[in-house]
């Protein structure tokens, strides 16, 4: 079977800064693929490119056989931004029903999506009056309601309590079993273990495209965070001899990105 998503030679510039530097990878159908990397590594930019709202300098992004963002894909690809993008002055139900209408779905399916994210009791409340975690789930419901074949989720579990986080991950895997392809970004490595595949991103480059088990082997550690750090160090040592490292740190200094930003991975 063809890959659900194919990316080749993707380059994205923002201002004078190169945010994504020639990424190439493929994402298989019906799996949960984790997009991991420190804050500022280009995760959100990559996700925006996948849903076709990012200006791309060069390279190709193909989703379900069509160029990313093409009209035929808009009912088949769901996107949940990092900050909840729902209407604060509408109730959860009104939000879900509006997005349901956009995807050609009924009010009944909107209510089912709300129940799916555990917000049935808060369905009548204005989003403005919800907690941060509830808002994020309301935003998720508005994507689930379209029953998309590809679901792109930007840090969906930030700020959720551990119980809810586990429930959501179970939901993601249930969707994947039903055939949905999920791309889930995170900057916490303990979520990496829950993914079927991992894409490790750092400074706009793809460090690794593997399964969690493979990362444990490559990084010579059972702890995924430790393994990730080992992979990064191994890469940097190669970079010194190939003079790539000088270039990279110069670039980072120019862009003003904090040197120690990788520490956030342990947050």
């Amino acid at each position, binding site marked *: 079977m063809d890959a659900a998503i194919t990316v080749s030679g993707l380059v994205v510039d923002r*201002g004078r800064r190169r945010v994504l530097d020639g990424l190439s990878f493929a994402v298989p159908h019906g799996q949960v693929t984790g997009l991991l990397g420190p804050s500022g590594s280009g995760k959100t930019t990559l996700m925006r490119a996948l849903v076709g*709202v990012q200006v791309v300098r060069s390279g190709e992004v193909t989703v379900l056989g069509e160029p990313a963002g093409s009209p035929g894909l808009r009912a088949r690809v769901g996107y949940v931004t990092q900050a909840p993008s729902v209407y604060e002055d509408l109730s959860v139900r009104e939000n879900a029903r509006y997005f349901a209408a956009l995807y050609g*779905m009924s009010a009944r399916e909107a209510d089912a999506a709300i129940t799916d994210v555990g917000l049935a009791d808060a369905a009548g409340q204005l989003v403005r009056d919800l907690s941060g975690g509830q808002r994020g789930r309301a935003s998720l419901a*508005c994507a689930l309601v379209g*029953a998309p074949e590809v679901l792109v989720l930007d840090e969906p579990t930030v700020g959720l309590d551990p119980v809810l986080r586990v429930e959501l991950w179970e939901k993601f895997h249930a969707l994947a079993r039903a055939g949905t392809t999920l791309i889930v970004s995170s900057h916490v490595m303990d979520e990496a273990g829950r993914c079927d595949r991992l894409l490790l991103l750092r400074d706009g480059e793809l460090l690794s495209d593997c399964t969690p088990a493979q990362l444990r082997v490559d990084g010579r550690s059972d702890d995924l965070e430790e393994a990730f750090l080992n992979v990064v160090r191994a890469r940097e040592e190669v970079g010194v001899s190939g003079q790539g490292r000088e270039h990279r740190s110069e670039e980072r200094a120019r862009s003003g990105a904090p040197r120690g930003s990788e520490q956030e991975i342990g947050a």
Partner: protein
Amino acid sequence: MTATLERRTSTHLSPRLTASTAGRVLRQLRHDHRTIAMMLVLPSVLLGLLYLLWKDLPTLPGQPGIFDRVGLTMLGIFPFVVMFLVTSIAMLRERTSGTLERLLTTPLGRMDLLLGYGLAFGLAATLQALVTVTIATTVYGLDVTGSVWLVGLIAVVDAVLGVALGLLASAFARTEFQAVQFMPVIVLPQFFLCGLLVPVDQMAGWLQVISHLLPLTYAVEALQEVGRSATATTTMWVDIAVVGGAALLALALAAGTLRRRTN
């Protein structure tokens, strides 16, 4: 793989999605009681202030009273100003909250979105016009030679122009501070030059040229026609068409500013 109803694949105009969007905007409005109250009542209150201002001033025999002339014109200007402000803020919120970017990843077309806003606020403006025209002609005794229904129609077309210009202006505002200041930029020059303060034919030539380029001038002329003629005049219909055309042009330009891909 997944059970779905009919799925739209084109981005052509969809009446169903436009109506859903208009419904959503109206639902947002419904949760905001204070805005509804201000929208409906404020123009009548301000008009009342003008009425009291001129009530006891003597008028020249054979001439219409100042309130009849100015009040009538204000019936077209209030909805324009109010809807411009409300729409530019609403659209800016759509941009800054991330919902616009999200909508652009859904099957909703850009024109569906803009027309949805136009429809929703056009309906709100119709209610506003009903209230304001009724209060003006009964409580304040505003004298209109022509039909009050035509006054209402012109008020609604003016409101739609305000909506369209508001949608366009919001593209150039990054913050609420900027959006609010587009009000004086877009509205005040049109107000100064529309022929209310000084009749257009008494302005300097180059000001007349500018005045004729601004849509509000035609709205005011249309209202003046209704004010002095018992039957609808051709000039009035042409004026209404010009205002409607300007609104459509602004909507098309606004659609051009909605970029699906951004950096």
